[in-house]
């Protein structure tokens, strides 16, 4: 027989393999096919194709595996159990960039489902090879490696620590400075996932000089990138006062306030989360936020969103008002109270109502002026009805009760107190009656200065 015929047999086989692997990869994009593929035993067929001689077949097989593992965690576990990971990790180090991309995609797809699978990936030594991939020239490879590292670090603090120990953070900071937008997005998201677990990890990220680059990129017009950057900065700032101060020193105010006007809802949410994390630590930081006009911007942002997007903004107002009465007065004059009472009235979700009730309580508890400002907007009956209603969750009831108590103990605005005389339960009624007595018979409560040694309080 001629050589050509022999070679033809091999060519047919190669064509068959290529076709098989390409079809599987294409079928794996549709979720309805994946069940059938799994039942047909596609994992055991794809595994030897990973070791194929032809590079395109290897790459397409890795791609198909990645798509399958992406779909659900049974398939991802099958990938881990089938001992495919060590082979992938080994060839990650040597092959060309298309294979590296596909292999990093498989690692990402496996690692994203659960901490145990991510631990399996870390155990087979994939982190070092992924970090080497981060130094590659091709931006696609860097992207795939960064997203794999981000998904691994997302689960818990130990995995984040493992990623940091492999030396990923400086390379991720370099990736952020690259010109490709998709790479920037993924690197920012990976940094956000690393720094969210503990202050030490956040400090590591800050020590690599991430804050300056992240702060520069807030001005970028791409909204998905802004989401990730704001999320990363808020995860860094939330742990301690020093980290929050470092974030503020990067001169994010007032640029961050423009993000509150973005069209994308999640950019608004992440921006208000960042401002909340900064404002909650100390009165000085809240003062800074107020002086930069942050309260007005957040109030407007609350007015323009609905649902869960509003929640960080509401909490931010509460934190600012909680620190001192001057700041609470600043919140009041920025027209925060009507906005909060609107949220309280119209939001359907209980946890958002609870947050609004808490914020109103923090505003109104300082002095009679503050309590008056809250009472004038007719929120006290709403709070009372929320406290008494049987449908409210326990958390909502507790928070509205605390808010009512703290406001009532300072409220001297009688028209708002009158409705309470009719339908309040006895434990609240005693406070209402006490307030009435303070206003109508102030001489009961007034001391002379020589007896009390203090200046008398006047209402």
């Amino acid at each position, binding site marked *: 027989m001629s050589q050509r015929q022999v070679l033809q047999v091999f060519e047919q086989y190669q064509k068959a393999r*290529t076709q098989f692997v*390409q079809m599987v*990869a*294409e079928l794996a*994009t549709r979720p309805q096919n994946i069940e059938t593929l799994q039942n047909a035993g596609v994992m055991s067929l794809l595994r030897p194709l990973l070791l194929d001689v032809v590079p*395109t077949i290897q*790459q*397409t097989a890795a*791609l198909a595996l*990645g*798509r399958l593992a992406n779909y659900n965690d049974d398939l991802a576990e099958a990938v881990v159990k089938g001992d495919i990971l060590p082979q992938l990790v080994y060839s990650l180090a040597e092959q060309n960039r*298309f294979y590296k*991309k*596909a292999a990093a*995609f498989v690692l*990402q797809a496996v690692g994203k489902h659960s901490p145990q699978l991510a631990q399996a990936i870390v155990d087979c030594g994939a982190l070092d090879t992924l970090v080497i991939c981060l130094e590659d020239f091709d*931006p*696609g490879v860097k*992207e*795939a490696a960064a*997203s794999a590292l981000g998904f691994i670090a997302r689960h818990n603090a130990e995995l984040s620590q493992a990623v940091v120990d492999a030396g990923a953070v400086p390379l991720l900071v370099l990736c952020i400075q690259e010109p490709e937008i*998709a790479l920037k997005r*993924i690197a920012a998201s990976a940094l956000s996932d690393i720094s969210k677990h503990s202050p030490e990890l956040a400090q590591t990220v800050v020590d690599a000089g991430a804050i300056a680059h992240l702060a520069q990129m807030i001005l970028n017009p791409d909204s998905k990138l802004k989401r990730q950057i704001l999320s990363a900065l808020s995860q860094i700032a939330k742990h301690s006062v020093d980290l929050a101060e470092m974030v503020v020193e990067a001169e994010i105010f*007032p640029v961050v*306030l*423009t993000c*509150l*006007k973005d*069209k994308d809802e999640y950019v608004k949410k992440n921006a208000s989360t960042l401002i909340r994390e900064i404002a909650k630590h100390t009165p000085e930081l809240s003062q800074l936020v*107020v*002086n*930069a*006009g*942050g*309260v*007005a*911007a957040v109030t*407007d942002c609350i007015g323009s969103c609905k649902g869960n997007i509003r929640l960080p903004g509401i909490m931010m107002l509460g934190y600012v008002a909680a620190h001192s009465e*001057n700041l609470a*007065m*600043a919140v009041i*004059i*920025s027209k925060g109270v009507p906005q909060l009472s609107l949220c309280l009235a119209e939001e359907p979700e209980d946890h958002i109502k609870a947050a609004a009730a808490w914020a109103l309580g923090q505003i109104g508890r300082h002095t009679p002026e503050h309590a008056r400002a809250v009472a004038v907007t007719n929120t006290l009956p709403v709070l009372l009805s929320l406290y008494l209603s049987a449908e409210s969750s326990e958390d909502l009831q507790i928070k509205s009760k605390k808010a009512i108590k703290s406001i009532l103990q300072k409220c001297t605005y009688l028209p708002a107190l009158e409705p309470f005389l009719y339908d309040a339960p006895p434990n609240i009624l005693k406070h209402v009656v006490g307030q009435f007595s303070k206003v109508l018979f102030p001489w009961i409560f007034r001391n002379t200065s020589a007896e009390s040694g203090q*200046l008398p309080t006047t209402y």
Partner: protein
Amino acid sequence: MATLARLQARSTFLAQQYYFRNSVVDIFRKKEYDAAVKIQSWFRGCRVRAYLRHLHRVATVIQKCWRGYLGRQQYQLIVKLAFCSMKMNLYNAMAVRIQKQWRGYRIRKYCFNYFYYKEYLRAVSETNDAIREALEEFAEMKEREDKKADLERKEKKKGYEARKMHYLLSTKQIPGIYNSPFRKDPDPWELRLQKAKPLISQRPKVKKISVSVSNWPAYASPQVLPQPKILPPIDRKPCQGPFRDITEVLEQRYKPLEPTLRVAEPINELQAAREELRKQECMRNIHDDMFLPFSSYNKNKKYIPLMHSSSKYGPDSYGSQHFRDENPTKWLCNKLEAN
């Protein structure tokens, strides 16, 4: 001795007489005595009383002085106390005045400066308004930019479509679909078509597929995987060391070929000449068909092969393709001769 006896006899008489005379006188004497005693006692009494009176008077004086002295002492104490308390009251009142002023000043300046507070709140509200305005402007600007970009995109699309549909332009003879004779003005598409340059259909450009992880379905076929491009040459620095002059080297490297006589002419020269001749004949011919003879009887004869070299299934290859035995060991078996 007789006197003694006489005296003794007379003693009782004497005694009696003595007694008798004393007793009478006694009463008188007693009376006088009593009177004297009375006078004396009265007088003594007077004397004593006078003395006592004197003593009383003197004692009163002493006590008076002493009491006055004690009283004055007491009075001085009281005065001192009253003076001290008056002073202290004055001092307290003055101190309260000072403290009142100081406390008011301190609270107003350091703890709760009302005017500063008012100023601060005013400044905060001004900043808020400024920020609100700035943000509104920013939002407006963004909207405007978005709208502009949208409009531009639409314009571009319409321009591209107009270029593609250029053939629908109306001519002098035939009005196009956008220029119906029943309309007063032509449709705006007509004007656009007039302005557009006709689009020459080019070879379909290979669309650049962005390389990203979110775009994985594009990786279905291997042709789509981007091929490595040939990079431009890097500028060479002059190499260090004892190298020859570059012009010499290049001269030597790119010396033109000086072939021998044998290879001076191409090896298929004869064939090329024949081809040349044939081409020239082709050029001169009217058509390329071969001139056929009238009768093609001989052409249609079917070839009848030898029975010797054909089998039921066609011509046997033995005798024409090969002569020796193909497989000499075909008729041998593996078994060793039984011995």
